[in-house]
């Protein structure tokens, strides 16, 4: 298409912003230098003709897989050629190459290689690491089975040690034990790290990891005893060959068990690992990535919906005047601006977890695991809280784009289908919320027995002082000032305390007059999830508020403060019942909160486009006709549609095959 100038509406929006978007971009990236480097890498990829291809929306699944494999292999070469080795820079590079989508080497690079590094013995590293680094071995990580996901102890694959041959015999004893879902397993990998129940000397020793060759080097044919394939079409992840793997009396040498920690000696003697808390570290890290991903995915959807809403004109607000931008409708602002605020909130939460992880990972390496349990519990809940919210938010953004949001050209369907599995993988969200709840109840119990707790749950300490008076923990009067973020943090804190206490008491009541612990837990689980949500919500508001103080530029800080207030107040408005029931806020205050939310919408309105520009998504990365930076939406929708597969011929073949014969017969 011919070069077009910027849409006049968007130009006006940008001119009217009260702050410089670049300054906010620097904050999101972690400093101007990081922004510069990110853009440098972005240009490296996007200007590279090797990474160009047809719009993926028009390709079949097989073609998408093919493109992804092609780009991935080039990517690995070029990363090494450019000497890019910093994990975050690799992440950027990969994200630009694959435009934020998954790719078939994800598990090789993200799980297979790192697992070798952390769990393989030096001898095993000699055998496997360099070939894997050079991609002669492509591996995946086969944990999930058809019958079990998050509940790892239920996995059924077996690895039975045979001392006579010094081999493990791997089996998939039931249909449900077939490995199912691992990325890159279906077509790409020739090896897999397989998690299986280890049996030696007649005893089950629990889950252990084994390096299993699955395809013949050279021909890529499945090895005898191995059944492997693709699990078929999915909602998204078209470029990923999620696979299945069935093993029948498949033998691997003893040396293929990852033995840096647990070991099986040649005679079958089992040597236990030192601590199982070590795996927490990896989980915390991956969950922190998902929190960041929630922020990014929601940011992309907001960028598209807000720019499009500034370009689209519809109906009338004032009789006789031109049609207004749909962004001027209060209902549209009410849909989009709280999500924009949420995207910012989650960015800061993601950055916080990552920093905390890096801060304490040094301690972990030195064997100090004291901070891990809380961080582990917190990230489980935040992973669930942010991914649920972002998942719903992306859909709201799409709905806010009306019919055109439904077209693949909007890009939002793709963001949604790519993002939505994060509610399930790396720990199903409800199960994650219950893990956080377990920690909260434990902390509550500690406080009840007179101990102090530290960290994000320290608000529970107030309970012991409260106990002197016979009332709810939160029934103390909190003077809430609805214009002051730090005062709102206190309100959220009180809500969390109240819901944690209510859940803990209900749990105790169940335990008092019944049965098993598990049963009592199950009968309280809806309450427990609510308590976790309230806790996470408090943490998000707290971290967002804390971030404001770090922003030096006054104009940027003002814009972020509006968003922070909107985030906090909107959350109160949506959960008004919790605040009313606990007596934290009065009805009159709730009415004020509702009113103030609407006033903030109008305040944020002039900065809306600048606030999404600050996310700084390149058009190619955004992949949306509706969300283009230049705002030339309609022209480009037409250009895009002309490339549709149904338009390949002027008269579709079904006319000759079906319509014409029928009409001839009548």
């Amino acid at each position, binding site marked *: 298409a011919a070069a077009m100038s910027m849409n006049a509406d968007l130009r006006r929006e940008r001119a009217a912003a009260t702050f410089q978007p670049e300054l906010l971009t620097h904050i999101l990236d972690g400093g101007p230098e990081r922004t510069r480097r990110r853009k440098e890498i972005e240009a490296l990829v996007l200007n590279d003709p090797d990474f160009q291809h047809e719009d993926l*929306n028009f390709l079949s699944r097989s073609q998408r897989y093919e493109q992804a494999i092609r780009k991935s292999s080039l990517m690995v070469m070029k990363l090494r050629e450019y000497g890019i080795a910093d994990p975050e820079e690799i992440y950027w590079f990969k994200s630009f190459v694959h435009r934020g989508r998954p790719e078939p080497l994800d598990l090789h690079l993200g799980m297979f290689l790192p697992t070798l590094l952390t769990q393989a013995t030096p001898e095993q590293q000699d055998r496997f690491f360099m070939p894997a680094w050079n*991609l002669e071995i492509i591996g995946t990580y086969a944990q999930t089975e058809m019958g079990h996901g998050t509940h790892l102890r239920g996995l059924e694959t077996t690895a039975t040690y045979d001392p006579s041959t010094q081999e493990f015999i791997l089996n998939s004893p039931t249909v449900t034990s077939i490995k199912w879902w691992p990325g890159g397993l279906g077509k790409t990998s020739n090896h897999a790290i397989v998690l299986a129940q280890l049996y030696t000397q007649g005893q089950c020793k629990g889950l252990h990891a084994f390096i299993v060759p699955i395809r013949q080097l050279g021909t890529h044919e499945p090895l005898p005893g191995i059944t492997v394939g693709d*699990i078929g079409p999915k*909602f998204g992840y078209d470029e990923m060959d999620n696979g299945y793997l069935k093993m029948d009396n498949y033998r691997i040498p003893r040396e293929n068990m990852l033995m840096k920690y647990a070991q099986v000696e040649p005679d079958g003697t089992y040597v236990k690992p030192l601590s199982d808390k070590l795996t927490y570290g990896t989980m915390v890290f991956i969950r922190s990535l998902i929190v960041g991903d929630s922020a990014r995915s929601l940011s992309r959807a907001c960028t598209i919906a807000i720019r499009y809403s500034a370009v689209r004109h519809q109906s009338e607000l004032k009789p006789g005047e031109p049609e207004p931008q749909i962004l001027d409708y209060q209902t549209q602002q009410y849909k989009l601006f709280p999500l924009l605020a949420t995207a910012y909130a989650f960015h800061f939460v993601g950055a916080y977890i990552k920093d905390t992880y890096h801060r304490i990972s040094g301690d972990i390496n030195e064997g100090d695991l004291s901070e891990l349990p809380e961080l582990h519990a917190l990230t489980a809940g935040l992973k669930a809280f942010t991914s649920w919210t972002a998942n719903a938010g992306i859909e709201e953004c799409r709905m806010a784009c009306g019919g055109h949001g439904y077209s693949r050209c909007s890009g939002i369907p793709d963001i949604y289908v790519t993002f939505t599995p994060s509610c399930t993988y790396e720990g199903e969200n409800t199960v994650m919320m219950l893990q956080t709840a377990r920690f909260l109840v434990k902390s509550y119990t500690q406080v009840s027995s007179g101990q102090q707790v530290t960290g994000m749950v320290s608000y529970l300490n107030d309970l012991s002082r409260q106990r002197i008076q016979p009332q709810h923990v939160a029934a103390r009067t909190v003077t809430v000032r609805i214009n002051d973020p730090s005062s709102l943090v206190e309100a959220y804190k009180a809500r969390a305390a109240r819901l944690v206490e209510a859940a803990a008491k209900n749990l105790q009541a169940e335990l008092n007059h019944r049965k098993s612990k598990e049963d009592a837990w199950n009968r309280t689980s809806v309450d427990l999830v609510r308590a976790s949500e309230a806790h996470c919500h408090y943490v998000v508001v707290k971290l967002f508020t804390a971030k404001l103080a770090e922003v030096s530029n006054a104009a940027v800080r003002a814009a972020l403060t509006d968003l922070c207030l909107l985030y906090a107040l909107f959350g109160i408005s949506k959960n008004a019942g919790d605040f009313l029931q606990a007596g934290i806020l009065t009805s009159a205050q709730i009415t004020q909160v509702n009113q103030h939310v609407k006033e903030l919408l109008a305040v944020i309105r002039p900065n809306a486009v600048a606030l999404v520009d600050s996310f700084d998504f390149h058009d190619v990365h955004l992949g949306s006709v509706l969300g283009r930076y230049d705002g030339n939406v309609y022209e480009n929708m*037409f250009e895009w549609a002309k490339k549709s597969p149904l338009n390949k011929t002027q*008269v579709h073949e079904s006319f000759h095959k079906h319509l014409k014969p029928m009409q001839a017969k009548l």
Partner: protein
Amino acid sequence: SVNPDLASERQTASFSVEKLTALLDGGAEKTRIRRAVVEAIESDPVFSRENQYFQTQNERYEAAVRKAVHLQKKMHELGWTENGSESKYIYRALSGDVAFLLHRVFMRSISVLGSDKQIAKWIPLATQLQVIGSYAQTELGHGTYLQGLETTAVFDIATQEFILNTPKISAMKWWPGDLGRSATHTVAFAQLYIHGKCYGIHPFIVQIRSLQDHSLCPGITAGDIGPKMNFEHIDNGYLLLKNVRVPRENMLSKFCEVRPDGTYVRQGSQKINYFTMTTVRISLIADEVLTPLMKACTIAIRYSAVRRQSKLKPGEQEAKILDYQTQQEKLLPQLAAAYAFHFINDYLQELFDRGYREIKRKNFDMLPELHALSSGFKALVTHHSTAAVEICLRACGGHGYSLLSGLPSLYTKILASCIYEGENTILLLQTARFLIKCFTAASAGHPVPPSVTYLAAVKPGKCPAKSKLDFFSPDIYTEAYQHVAVRLISSTASKLQDLIQSGVKKYDAWNQCTVQLVQAAKAHCHYITVKNFAETVEKLETKAGIQKIMKHLCDLFALHGIFSNTGAFLHDGYISAAQMDMVTASYLDLLAVIRKDAVPLVDAFDFTDKSLNSALGSYDGQVYQRLYEWAQKSPTNEMSPAYEKYLKPLLHNTLSKL
């Protein structure tokens, strides 16, 4: 054989599944006819959807055309007619997977908007599929706001023709189904100009493709708008008109006519036309919303009875995930909503039948109420059901994400219903406008339509419940819903009033209150749904356990609504904090009660396995076996060219040099 985990669920049903199915169908005879239609369609291999999840957009489209053509033949063979008792079940039996759906809208618009002469000319041609029609209203730049459409039709007296044009890019017709590839004709909506004067939007029959070789007619540019979230089988299209001339007789002229000399004549009442738009909103609820919602519930609940995960009691076998309170709390409210919406749909259908009888007698009094109800309920039901299907999808964990679960396609299809036939927010604001008007009238002592008389009888007070059991009383919760609806409508009305009195312009005041207005409209529709459910239960026969289980579902629907929106009920203290704890307790207690009948309750929806087309939701519960078998049929399991082209060089490897 049936998975024992599902078989055991069915043995303990507290009610007769067959009787409940008959209730849903409206009588055992209707069940019989429906099943016969389903059997006839599903036994015919042309209608198979077996490989649907593996097909490309082109293949899906071709299959849909093949099915549409075959259906024509089949109906003739079986003696089914358009107006016969079978016809309403055909679409459900096909799961909507057939082309020429807009062709029906094309025909309906001619029947409703056309003169007798136009009907006589076009309907026989269309019935025989000698012409294939589409309905081109929406443009790139405008959807729900019809006055904004930009296509023009200028009358040329000299040739007695209309000249149609697409004056700018945003005026291009965009989205109409069957337009992209199939249609030979369309009803196009355009701004009518005579002697330079604009007369507003009018419908014109325009030929777009040759009846001989299907090539585009001169002045026409048309094609497919590209891939969407769903509806791969439908060729939603675009259409550009450049000086396309159609004869004067092609303007549909039952209500408006342009005489040969250019005189514009309006005749008859167009109100009946509005009524048609209103009925479409209601008629889509059954096929496009309830069916996918019920299918999603069936799949998710059956799967949850088969899937076992983790242990509830040490030493026992792993528990069915349906036994986890959190899973029940996800799924059972959706099941209750499916029943609630089924009954509200019955209520609306009946109301509209009555309305139609009145309108035929030239009595248009019911129109404003019908319009408000159809808008509000279209929005409420599509919104809730879409959210419900998504919850079902996510409640199935990883396997829900596979297309083979059937859930992704149900979701992507149902969610379009939030937008087509009127975007939901706009529809709710239309309902709100009606409510505010009625509230003002009621406050002034004027009569109001039956569905809103409650606005006249506002009684202050508090919820009288004393124990958690009181919340199983329909009077208690229905009144709570009524109270909230009245409170939200009245407070918004006075807010509007205040703003206007303080000097804010009316339209500005309206925009400033729209968030509240939307909430008020939702509260109204929610109240009517609860009330209707409770009244329906009251009238059900008590035998065969039907009334009892429906009463439980009604309670659950009502209490779930309070539980998930506590703020609205606590706001003015109508429900106290202590009472809200009772609501929560009752609500959670109910989950365990309904849990026992969950599988029979979805069995009663009576979907065949072919119709569900789900590896997770089949009647026999052989989930894992089916998932494994279906996956192996995936085309991706044929040797991929990617290996030879990219993987092989990668593995063998040119990279190690680096």
